[in-house]
């Protein structure tokens, strides 16, 4: 039986961050994730390492900490981030006193935020007249009273998780995806290990660990219960609509009917309309999106940008925030602060820790706190370096033109590889030197080249081809994998020497997983897209008709 210092359960941003930090501090770490890395709450996040302006009203310390940490993340992963300026639009009002108060009040808040934004390279706020707002965003409705700008940083969250997990592996950690923790091994009141089951092969394995860290996000209560402890969360469902391209380079912050802040913002090569925040006690792995939620988001966006209904929705992000439990509050008021539960002190169960709450932007500092506690429990001393050392690929960002020339590929495609892999781009594209056909575009939209898919399959824990959506955005374009799912599955099958039945089932799983993410939001050209997709995938490839997988949720 393998023995570890630390077993981290959960491969979201927190789990990966903890694994990386712990591994760098010399601990022997295993990271297990029951699905794919970042496929839980992280997969449905807004994709920003923001500083949390709203916390200026409840806990200034959180804002400062977030901004400082956002600055750290920029330094350790410079290739993955991009700036998103935001225009906070102020609605018009007949009462000029009210208008004055709102405008000056908002200005004050954002100017205050400037003091913290400087920690993360943010630019100072600008005050805009209504005419100026319309110059920057021409489709904003006329009835506004001006705008204030600020900026945040966007990031590709699945790649961030992957980079953390990869760094953990580089530092000696073992990473297991599609592996479920099915039970704990106890010695009296101490958790000393766990039973793991591979979801794909069915193999069972037992491992020993001095400390087990429960970083499973919305699944925290269930995992804690398995260990004999109770952790209460107040899970909050959040939904975003994804549009097929950037509408502009600026995000627009607007107010919805119920007074909540909403945004329409660019992210990589798509746009998001978000987000909702409702209590949710269903299965975090199977989150339905309701007609009301989509209508709510569109209505809020349309109230500021009337033409946004003409934009093409390609999928819906859905996730559950693992918010800490506090009774009697409206969802938005709940603190996003995190808490680390020491079950030895709290419940008498030693060797077990849990993290609840928190937000993605503070993952690094949360991980640092978590590993500090783990080190304390293990009686070891080693300072944290996760804010100083770059993540894999984050040391030097190569130029797209150089990489393109090196491999004879298009500079645009090269820029996307660099975005995802940073200085490791040349390693990723290496196969082109021996297999020239690996330069072909499997997925037109990024574009994602066959070489990158092959690299991810070989090196980035791709156990099901659907994992590729998170590794290199296969299937994330407007056609949602219509053409690329089959091709990517073939490369996966080739690398893993799969038989015909397994290949068909892998493709079916991929098709089903992608359908799940968009079927509630089919509209406009999306329906024509689907018509063509069915001709190809059901008419020519006949994947579903020949697959024997249980037609259930992925």
């Amino acid at each position, binding site marked *: 039986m393998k023995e570890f210092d630390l077993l981290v359960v959960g491969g979201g941003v927190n789990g990966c961050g903890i694994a990386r930090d712990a591994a760098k501090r010399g601990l022997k770490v295993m990271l297990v994730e029951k699905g794919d890395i970042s496929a839980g709450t992280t997969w449905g996040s807004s994709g920003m390492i923001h500083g949390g302006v709203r*916390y*200026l*009203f*409840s*806990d*200034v*310390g959180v804002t400062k900490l977030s901004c400082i940490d956002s600055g750290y993340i920029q330094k350790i992963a410079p290739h993955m981030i*991009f*700036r998103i*300026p935001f225009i906070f639009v102020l609605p018009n009002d007949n009462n000029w006193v009210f208008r004055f108060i709102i405008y*000056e*009040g908002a200005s*004050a*808040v954002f*100017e*205050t935020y400037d003091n913290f934004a400087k920690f993360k390279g943010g*630019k*100072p706020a*600008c005050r*805009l*007249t209504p005419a*100026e707002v319309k*110059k*920057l965003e*021409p*489709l904003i409705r006329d009835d506004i009273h001006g705008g204030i*700008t600020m*900026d945040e940083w966007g990031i590709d969250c699945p790649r961030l998780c992957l980079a953390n997990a990869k760094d953990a592996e580089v530092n000696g950690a073992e990473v297991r995806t599609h592996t479920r923790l099915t039970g704990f091994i106890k010695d009296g009141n101490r958790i000393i290990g766990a039973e793991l089951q591979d979801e794909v092969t069915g193999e069972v394995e037992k491992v020993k660990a001095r400390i087990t860290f429960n970083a499973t996000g919305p699944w925290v209560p269930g995992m804690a219960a398995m260990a004999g402890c109770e952790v209460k969360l107040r899970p909050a469902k959040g939904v975003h609509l994804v*549009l*097929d391209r*950037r*509408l*502009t*380079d*600026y995000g627009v912050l607007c107010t919805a009917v119920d007074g909540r802040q909403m945004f329409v913002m660019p992210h*990589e*090569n798509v746009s998001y309309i978000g987000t909702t925040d409702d209590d949710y006690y269903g299965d975090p792995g199977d989150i339905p999106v309701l007609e009301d939620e989509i209508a709510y988001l569109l209505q809020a966006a349309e109230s500021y940008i009337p*033409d946004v209904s003409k*934009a*093409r929705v390609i999928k819906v992000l859905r996730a559950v925030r693992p918010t800490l439990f506090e009774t009697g509050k409206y969802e938005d008021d709940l*603190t996003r602060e995190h808490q680390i539960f020491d079950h030895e002190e709290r419940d008498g169960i030693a060797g077990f820790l849990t993290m609840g709450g928190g937000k993605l932007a503070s993952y690094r500092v949360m991980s640092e706190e978590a590993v500090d506690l783990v080190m304390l429990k293990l009686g070891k001393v080693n300072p944290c370096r996760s804010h100083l050392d770059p993540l894999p690929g984050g040391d030097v960002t190569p130029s797209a*033109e150089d990489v393109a020339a090196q491999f004879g*590929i*298009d*500079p*645009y495609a*090269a820029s996307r590889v660099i975005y995802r892999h940073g200085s490791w781009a040349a390693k990723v594209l290496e196969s082109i030197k021996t297999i020239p056909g690996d330069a072909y*575009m499997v997925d*037109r*939209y*990024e*574009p994602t080249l066959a070489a990158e898919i092959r690299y991810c399959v070989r090196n980035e824990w791709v156990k099901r081809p659907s994992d590729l959506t998170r590794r290199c955005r296969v299937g994330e*374009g*407007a*056609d949602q994998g219509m*053409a690329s799912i089959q091709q990517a599955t073939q490369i996966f099958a080739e690398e893993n020497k799969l038989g015909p039945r397994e290949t068909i089932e892998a493709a079916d799983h991929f098709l089903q997983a992608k359908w799940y993410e968009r079927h509630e939001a089919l509209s406009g*050209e999306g329906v*024509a*897209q689907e018509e*063509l997709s069915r001709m190809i995938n059901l008419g020519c490839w006949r994947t579903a008709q020949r697959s024997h997988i249980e037609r259930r949720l992925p």
Partner: protein
Amino acid sequence: MSGFKKAMAISYIGYRTGHHMLRQGYKDVSRIVGIKVLDGIPKFTQNYIADGLTSLTRAERNKQWDFSKCINCGLCDALCTPIDNTRDLLSQGPSLAASSYSRAFPWYKHAEKYLSEWKACSGCGKCSNICPTGVPLKEIVAFMQRVIDKQKAGIMVAD
């Protein structure tokens, strides 16, 4: 504890608001007196032009919805005349303009190689004519070129 933190936060905001009003007053006086105060679009430009984050004109914004109609069917690629026998082209065809290159403005500069290949476009219009969803392919290229020119010229807002 959180009640205390909240009280601290609110007082801090109150203090900052007062500070802001004073600064604002100072700025207004400066303007009246004739001292230049950087704000509005000039300040925005200074902030973000280095990242190439330019804005779009109203006409450009209204065109975007048509660019999104592409369903990746490939008919335009199949009938594009200049692609006949010019396998030197890296571009792979007109469809990429709609589905890929035009999606993300900050990366347009890397698409210049692809755009330069459109100089071989004969203007036959076959691509737009047979497109099932009516994507105006040639307009996409013109759109992208205008944005790149703006980015290079450092113009934040064009009219």
